[in-house]
């Protein structure tokens, strides 16, 4: 499903060049759950962003569902992000002025989902992640764990095939983190998703079927 070959991402900082990805080879089968670990600055987030179409690779090939993502034009890339990928971030990235419901509806506005269907689906998702009673709450009125549940509901709203989670439990205590992991794994199982999780926490990585270690923009260990 995901096939990266010699994937590179180079940032130019004045004269310096930062090789955030220095030739990554990675294959992930559909429905797999992979944890990505490694020291800070090793390129984990960059890898996720490139796979998710938020960033373009500088070189190399990235195939997702037999499509070459690096060749997509802007519109195609946006469509790819919308329809194929669901993102979950460490800092939740919810819109603070919107309610939980509105946050979950938001991505669907860009995917031609009718307003009625948007609302239904958002309600369904929020209930499915256990937030039925929090539908009208704004992010500031939610705990970290609840905010992350909202962002999981939001990530699932456009029925993605791949869920990319960048340190989803990084801002949560271990108990809440375990709950979020359980929810992610449930989503992965029930939605038959491919799940990539960046984490520093070995306990979180232990949930994954496979652990990939990165260092200096390269995959150094693939267990």
């Amino acid at each position, binding site marked *: 499903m995901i096939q990266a070959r010699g994937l590179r991402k180079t940032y130019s900082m004045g004269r310096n060049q930062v090789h955030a990805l220095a030739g990554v080879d990675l294959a992930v089968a559909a429905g797999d759950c992979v944890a990505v670990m490694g020291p800070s600055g090793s390129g984990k987030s960059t890898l996720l962003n490139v796979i998710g179409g938020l960033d373009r690779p500088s070189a190399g090939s990235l195939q997702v569902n037999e499509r070459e993502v690096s060749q997509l034009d802007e519109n195609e890339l946006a469509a790819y992000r919308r329809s194929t990928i669901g993102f979950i971030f460490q800092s939740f990235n919810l819109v603070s002025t919107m309610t939980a419901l509105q946050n979950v509806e938001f991505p669907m506005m860009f995917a031609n989902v009718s307003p009625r*269907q948007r609302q*239904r689906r958002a*309600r*369904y998702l929020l209930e499915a992640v256990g937030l039925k009673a929090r539908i*009208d709450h704004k992010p500031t009125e939610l705990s970290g764990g609840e905010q992350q549940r909202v962002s999981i509901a939001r990530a699932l709203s456009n*029925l993605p095939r791949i869920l990319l989670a960048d340190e989803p439990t990084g801002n949560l205590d271990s108990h809440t983190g375990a709950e979020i992991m359980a929810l992610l794994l449930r*989503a992965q199982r029930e939605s038959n998703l491919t799940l990539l999780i960046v984490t520093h926490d070995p306990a979180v990585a232990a949930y994954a079927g496979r652990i990939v270690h990165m260092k200096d923009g390269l995959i150094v260990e693939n267990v």
Partner: protein
Amino acid sequence: MSLTLDPEAIAAAPPEAPRPNLLKLLLGIWVRPRATLAAVAAGPGWVWLIPLLLAAAFLIGRVLVAGPLQIEQQIAQQQQMQEESMANMPPEMRESLSPEAFEVHQPPLSAVITLPLVAGLAGIVLGWLARAGILHLGSMLFGGRQGFAGLYRVGAWAGFPLILRDAVQMLYMRLSHSLIEGSGLSGLAASTADSNLVAGGGMVSAVAGGGSAAPTALSLFLGRIDLYTLWFLGLLLVGLIAGGLSRGKALIVILFYAGLTLLPAFLPLLFGGMTGGF
């Protein structure tokens, strides 16, 4: 967490609140008020039209039944007064009066029907808006999260006991062919044997009786409150609690609302007290 995250299920996304069954709501408001008011609060915007239509219908019905009775009563009163004054009048004076003096003046229909109707309907429209506004403000002050529209619907449905009161009064007047005297719990303040007003009349209660005896402060106050009103306030309370407000906070909001709506009954009292009489 029983809902599956299967994409097909997500895409199908059945509406989380099942379509409200009107019959169930209409029954539920009497027997399962909490669940019913919660459903009404969440329910589609139009559910408030049901109590509105019923409230308007029974208001019209009550006024149409009471109007002719009031006319009859007033005519009877006039006749009685005339007869009394005639009886105390020397015959020669009585004979010198023109025939017009013996005519009874029929009160205009507008006074007993049009006016109460217009006032009543305006009261529904404005009163319901004001009620939702007060509840919204009150619940917001306590951190409640129910919106104006939801509280408007809850208020409208909590008002079913008041609709029932109109219906019962209409039926009572229709069958007994007499106006309802002694309103609300004012019978409680009655010193004499007409305390049966509470038991019997109490269930019918609460139209301004038009008794000529000067009302005491207590009877005026109790006249504004009857079992239906207490029931209504209780439902409002339940509705606020169902909307997520704590019992104590909801109670304060309701007392505040009740105080505000009872205030108009006290104003003439205060005013009357200051100017030395009614």
